[in-house]
């Protein structure tokens, strides 16, 4: 059993008590300690800035050409916080409750409570940074509703909330760069972690412009490298988002928790052709005013305006009267799949309508335009259809990954000195994340949690004392170089993307919105075959010592081909349905997810053994002292 190091005491006092009980590092000593932060999204940028403000020397790395471009920027709808500005009954406890229930009782209570607790500070911090949140005429902040909640607690900046929060964190980061306390390394890709004497000692990365392999040593390493959704090839993630950093850390000893918990977002623009390079999300906030429907008639080829009202099936409103179109993401996605599989999709295919006709009638086009104008424009650009006139066509797509590297209450992985924050860790969302909670978690980890908890580690363990010319760095660098050489010297016949597409489709079919034993076993047979072929038949053009985007992708796909196996294995082992993990063998009579709390009320944390070899399962028991697990109901 894994020990999450959850502090004792009543849930509402754990975090304050812990902050008092953990050891501190005095300011003079902080100056002698260095921290590597990989990734500059909400979690990474906020952590780097906050650690630097405390006096630690920080090296910040990002894969993009500028830290301002990390994928947090694409989050549209908003950020949750338990401010209760609407006087609608919200509280820290309610946000905690909604998140635990939304996660289908597979998240750690103590972490989630802390998240809800610091949510209020996040809004304060962002406002002070100049984030232009939406406001009322009174000058006070506006809120809107998101899925899985019956209160309005979501703060937003038009449809660009992620962008504005990220630019706030990026500003804080650049302020510290200007002060000379953060050294910024853009266009770097972390290719491995260096561990010495069971402690993280640094990273090996590739300079994407020159192709040089670089070594960076530090007293602690923080991974804020996001999720692994791009393993599916098609997802709403940015093209550069990848799993290499966390996978390499896993291979070096960090346990990987709940990899099968992936979130399929219900409202994305459907796939239009084989050339498709990514999928585009339409914000969940649209479900505040849009109504989701399909034709009651199977294979109906009529255009939407010719389908009369009585033949329109508002399946979410019918099936979930109390939450209606605002059921959580996993529930909405599954329902869309079910109606489409049954032949009710748009023209019998894989799409449902998201219709604003009634909202436009009720509030007028201007109000809808003010709320969602940029999203409607984006939809029109991509599809060539005007959503003010004709309903949007949407379908679920891979969006977020709740699984990630296992961390304890202090956000430290199973490798001492290696911290994991934001989407890269597994911690707060259980088996399903609620909308507008990813931004909250990223900033909670980076601004308010990690900067405190890392001090406890330093106070106990001191500096690492390993320089970048240590023999351990030689060994890891050699492995990294050998791997690159193997890839470029393969001279095969298939492109990197062909392999990636093949893997993605296999996972979508068998480890996507619905999973079953037969399909997972099939995927588990097929993945090693694809992997074997990859190393014999991939074609990586260009040389390693230059700017080479094919080589970049080749390394990421090589890692996906290892990671995918773990994901399917985890899905196969979890013989229950919970949140986004829906095993067809385990459902209630009316097709809802059926948990098995007797057997699976734990976090599955996997330890790497070898490629293609069975990993070792470690369990962290989940204990619910506050909220009694029950079957989730949104009816």
């Amino acid at each position: 059993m894994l020990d999450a190091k959850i502090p004792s005491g009543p849930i509402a006092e754990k975090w304050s008590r812990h902050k008092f009980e953990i050891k501190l590092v005095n300011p003079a000593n902080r100056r002698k300690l260095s921290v590597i932060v990989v990734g500059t999204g909400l979690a990474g940028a906020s952590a780097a800035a906050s650690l630097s403000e405390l006096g630690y020397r920080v090296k910040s790395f990002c894969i993009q050409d500028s830290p301002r471009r990390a994928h947090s920027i694409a989050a549209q709808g908003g950020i949750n916080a338990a401010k209760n500005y609407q006087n609608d009954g919200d509280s820290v406890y309610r946000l905690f409750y909604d998140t635990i229930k939304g996660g289908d009782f597979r998240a750690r209570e103590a972490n989630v409570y802390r998240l809800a607790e610091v949510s209020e500070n996040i809004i304060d911090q962002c406002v002070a940074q100049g984030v232009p949140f939406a406001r009322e005429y009174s000058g006070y902040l506006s809120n809107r509703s998101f899925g899985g909640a019956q209160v309005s607690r979501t703060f937003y900046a038009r449809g660009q909330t992620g962008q504005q929060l990220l630019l706030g964190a990026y500003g804080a980061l650049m302020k510290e760069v200007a002060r000379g306390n953060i050294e910024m390394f853009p266009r770097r890709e972390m290719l491995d972690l260096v561990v010495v004497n069971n402690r993280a000692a640094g990273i090996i990365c590739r300079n994407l412009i020159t192709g040089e392999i670089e070594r960076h040593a530090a007293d602690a390493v923080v991974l804020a490298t996001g999720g692994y959704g791009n393993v599916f090839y098609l997802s709403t993630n940015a093209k550069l988002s990848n799993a290499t950093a966390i996978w390499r850390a896993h291979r070096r000893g960090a346990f990987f928790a709940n990899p099968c918990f992936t979130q399929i977002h219900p409202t994305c623009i459907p796939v239009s052709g084989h050339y498709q390079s990514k999928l585009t999300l339409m914000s969940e906030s649209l479900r505040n005013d849009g109504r989701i429907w399909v034709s009651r008639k199977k294979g109906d080829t009529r255009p939407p305006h010719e389908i009369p009202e009585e033949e329109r099936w508002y399946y979410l409103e019918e099936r979930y009267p109390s939450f209606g179109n605002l059921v959580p993401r996993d529930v909405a996605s599954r329902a869309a799949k079910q109606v489409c599989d049954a032949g009710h999709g748009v023209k019998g295919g894989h799409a449902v309508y998201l219709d604003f006709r009634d909202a436009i009638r009720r509030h007028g086009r201007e109000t809808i335009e003010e709320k969602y104008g940029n999203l409607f424009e984006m939809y029109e650009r991509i599809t060539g259809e005007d959503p003010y006139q004709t309903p949007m066509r949407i379908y679920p797509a891979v969006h977020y990954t709740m699984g990630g590297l296992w961390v304890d209450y202090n956000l430290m992985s199973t490798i001492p000195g290696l911290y994991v924050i934001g989407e890269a860790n597994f911690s707060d969302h259980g088996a399903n994340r609620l909308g507008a909670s990813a931004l909250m978690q990223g900033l909670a980890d980076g601004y308010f949690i990690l900067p405190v908890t890392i001090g406890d580690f330093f106070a106990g363990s001191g500096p690492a004392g390993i320089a970048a010319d240590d023999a351990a760095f030689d060994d890891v660098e050699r492995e990294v170089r050998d791997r690159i050489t193997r890839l470029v010297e393969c001279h095969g016949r298939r492109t990197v993307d062909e392999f990636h597409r093949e893997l993605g489709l296999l996972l979508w079919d068998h480890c996507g919105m619905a999973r079953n034993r037969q399909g997972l076993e099939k995927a588990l047979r097929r993945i090693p075959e694809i992997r074997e072929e990859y190393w014999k038949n991939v074609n990586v053009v260009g040389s390693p010592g230059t700017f080479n985007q094919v080589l970049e992708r080749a390394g990421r796909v090589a890692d996906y081909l290892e990671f995918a196996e773990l994901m399917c294995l985890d899905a196969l082992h979890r013989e229950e349905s919970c949140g986004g993990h829906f095993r067809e063998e385990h459902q209630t009579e009316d097709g809802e997810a059926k948990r098995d709390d007797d057997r699976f009320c734990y976090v599955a944390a996997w330890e790497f053994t070898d490629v293609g070899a069975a990993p070792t399962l470690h369990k962290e028991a989940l204990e619910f002292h506050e909220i009694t697990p029950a079957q989730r109901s949104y009816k």
Partner: protein
Amino acid sequence: MSEKTMNLTLKVWRQEGPHVKGRFETYAAENISPDMSFLEMLDVVNTRLEQAGEEPIAFDSDCREGICGTCGAVVNGRAHGPLSATTLCQVHMRHFNDGDTIVIEPFRAEAFPIVKDLVVDRSALDRIISAGGYISVRTGEAPEAHAVPVSKRAAEEAMDAAACIGCGACVAACPNASASLFTAAKIIQLAKLPQGNIERRRRAIAMIQQMDKEGFGSCSKHYQCEAACPKGIKVSFITAMKSEYFKALVSKD
């Protein structure tokens, strides 16, 4: 969705590195679906180059939904291509015709050295922000969010400016390669808000000085920046920035 495909001719700028001479190369883009994005069209061309063992065209992209500011090229003489207020990744091929020739070049400016082909180094924009494009609040110092109300109008105007994605199209479009629109957007966003008021003088001077230092030209009101801006940032922010700057020069803060 349409079934018809197009055949196009691309003339693409190829350049191995910053200090090597570049040239235009011609490629055929065949069987292009009108529903593809411009970048997906380039992906298709690149796949064919890879299959032929040739180096694909290097170009930057990340989110491919118009918000990260990573992508961008000059297409037929226009930064981000033919559509107004649209990043290149959001331009779809239905806006081109079968048989078209498309000329694709990088964002050119002295302050944006070429990395490879269509990829440029825009780190000068980060250094402008680093000079003062923020409010110097430390984590934990913030007062309760409602302690300082902000008028809806100020918040909306700040948001109009804050929508900048830092892609650099304004620089590429400007005959002087000025970064005024980019710099003004940040200065004005923060000047509109009460939280940004304390540092507004210092900020304006520091950011404008850094902009000059990076080798960007100055604004002589061609307004090409606004026309190219994928987020529709208004040139009126540049006028406001100049006013901020002159006020700052005479102020004693």
